[in-house]
């Protein structure tokens, strides 16, 4: 009896048909959820897990005088590969603190995450032009300067920038420029300006040019070529810049912020609009030691990365300790020699490797510094510029 019921049940379920209407409904829902899942899951490929696992390397060192009890955890939200691992380990050993290091790929992602309600981070490292928005959004708080005595070591010309004129919210970290990376072994023509870069890219070296995937950096090229401010928002002038970019588009090999140094190394690309980060590594390798970095003569972007303390930081004492300690001259020296970016710390500059100091790509001389321009937050949000960027991206294929 029961067996026959079971057989009937089985037979019935095997014959069961989903009728078309309900299948379409299900497929539609599935499709919708899959689309959302595809879009959102794609965006999280850039956030990496913590890399500062505490293997306490005993430094047997002197401990800095604690200002209040230093917590046993510190959460840092930063660009990838931006703190020397030896410094992380040193701090962890000094204060018995575990540092969790999370990464973001660009400032917009950082801002988007904070706006989306992400919390639990103590310190973050945005580029200074995002300070106004972070202040307005209430994500960061004013720093207690009495707990950061090493601020006195900062180069005054780097302080008091337009984004935070009284230095209330940030501690400078590194600064630099956006410029041209070139393989001099192959590109023997003179290259000192954006105009020459454009001519070479659209001419002889077409198809071997890489640009970083960043609106603010790529737009510098056409605007400076035309002699305008890189924060230009006037629609007529932006239209001129658009024409230049669209002329360049067919000759661009890739829009890539992450692996452009690999393309330079394999000579798949010989010209690159990028940053100085990969320069040290490329120069160390004898095969690619001919790489040079040029700050174009028309002027270019000045960027400053800064430390900020988040308003809801759960570990304030550890945060302040880090903000001050990272600018101890020998610690800062290790930072500069690790990531190859210019330090604003005058005491550290005295002990930094003289080869780095003498390199105009990393520490630009005064006359070059005078031609640099910082980004304007209002320009970053400008609709016309964003539309221009979307149009440029569409026209690449």
């Amino acid at each position, binding site marked *: 009896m029961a067996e026959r019921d079971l057989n009937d049940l089985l037979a019935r379920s095997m014959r069961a048909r989903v009728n078309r209407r309900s299948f379409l409904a299900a497929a539609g829902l599935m499709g919708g959820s899959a689309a959302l899942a595809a879009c959102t899951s794609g965006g999280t490929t850039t956030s990496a897990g913590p890399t500062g696992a505490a293997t306490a390397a005993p430094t047997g060192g002197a401990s800095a005088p604690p200002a209040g009890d230093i917590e046993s955890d510190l959460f840092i939200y930063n660009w990838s590969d931006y703190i020397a691992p030896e410094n992380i380990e040193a701090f962890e050993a000094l204060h018995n603190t575990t540092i969790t290091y999370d990464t973001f790929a660009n400032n917009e992602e950082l801002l988007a995450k904070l706006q989306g309600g992400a919390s639990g981070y103590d310190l973050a490292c945005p580029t200074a032009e995002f300070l106004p928005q972070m202040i307005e959004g209430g994500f960061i708080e004013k720093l207690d300067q009495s707990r950061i005595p090493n601020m006195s070591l900062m180069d005054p010309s780097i302080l008091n920038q337009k984004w935070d004129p009284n230095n209330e919210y940030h501690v400078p970290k590194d600064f630099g420029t956006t410029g041209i990376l070139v393989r001099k072994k192959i590109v023997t023509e003179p290259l000192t300006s954006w105009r020459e870069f454009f001519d070479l890219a659209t001419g002889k070296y077409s198809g071997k040019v890489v640009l970083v995937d960043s609106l603010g950096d790529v737009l510098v090229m056409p605007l400076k070529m035309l002699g305008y401010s890189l924060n230009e928002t006037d629609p007529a002038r932006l239209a001129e810049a658009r024409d230049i970019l669209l002329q360049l588009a067919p000759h661009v090999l890739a829009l890539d912020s992450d692996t452009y140094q690999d393309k330079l190394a394999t000579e*798949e690309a010989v010209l690159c609009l990028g940053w100085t980060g990969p320069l040290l590594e490329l120069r160390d390798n004898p095969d690619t030691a001919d790489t040079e970095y040029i700050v174009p003569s028309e002027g270019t972007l000045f960027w400053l990365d800064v430390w900020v303390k988040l308003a809801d930081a759960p570990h304030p004492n550890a945060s302040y300790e880090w903000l001050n300690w990272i600018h101890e001259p020998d610690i800062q020296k290790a930072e500069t020699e690790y990531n190859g970016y210019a330090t604003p710390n005058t005491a550290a500059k005295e002990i930094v490797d003289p080869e780095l100091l003498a390199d105009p790509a990393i520490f630009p001389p005064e006359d070059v510094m005078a031609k640099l321009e910082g980004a304007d937050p209002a320009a970053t949000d400008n609709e016309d510029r964003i539309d221009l960027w979307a149009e440029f991206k569409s026209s690449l294929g």
Partner: protein
Amino acid sequence: MTAPAATAGTATRNEGRPWKATAVTGLLLLPAALWYFLLLVAPLFIVVVFSFGEKARNGGYAPAFSFENYGEVLERAEPFFASLRLASAGTLLTLLVGLPLAYFIATRAGRHKGVLVLLLVVPFWTSFLIRAYSWLITLGPRGAAGFFQDTFGDPAFRILGTELGVLIGMTYGYLPLMIFPLYVTLERMDRTLIEASKDLGAGRFATFRQITLPIILPGVITGSILVFIPMMGEYVIPAILGYGRTFLIGNALVLDFLEARNWPAGSAKAVGLIALMLVTITFYLWFLNRGRQTRDVSVL
């Protein structure tokens, strides 16, 4: 409650059961229903609401009611067409590659069936992103592209940074999703039908076209949908294998949400994407099922 039934004992039992049965059914469905509502219906609703809004001052959503974002969707529709083109081509390619493979494993593999299916699954244990990066070497100038450059003497030939590279990457990534439904339907197919068809004089191709294909059609449909939908939303592969040059709807959404931080515009594009997929899949189902006697679609 239930009035005591006057007649047979089974009547009382039947009247009590529906109440309890529905309660138990309800309880069993509750986790799934909650999951669907919180993670699917509610977010979809939020996306639709956002699509009518406008960008907040520092990025995000500000309440408003305007069709401006949809106007922009219609104005700049190229990413939609690019995605549609690549996803359709990718689906067709996975079908062309997957069907013979599934057919072989289901009908000819014999003892090795299990091992072959396992080999199909093993790559899924590696991160998709890492596999995409490995394609950079295989298809790059020192790999396949270099080989073709030498063979055809064309130094400008490239695979990476073109739609072809993206197509190959997508096909590779989603091939197992196409193969599994096909494999299941092929395996369950009644082999005696083929014998009967041959007995009646049909050649191999005629048998395939008239007997096998209609039977495995549900598997083809399922596989196609499973593959088409993620391909439409793909953005990692265009970014890596397309060298950032292919601008698909996934890339446009990333630009809106992460760079421009214009959530309403991105939401409108997302709604557009969903609408486009619904239309495409409906048409696809209608096209494949027209002329069939049974108006039902049986899924597997």
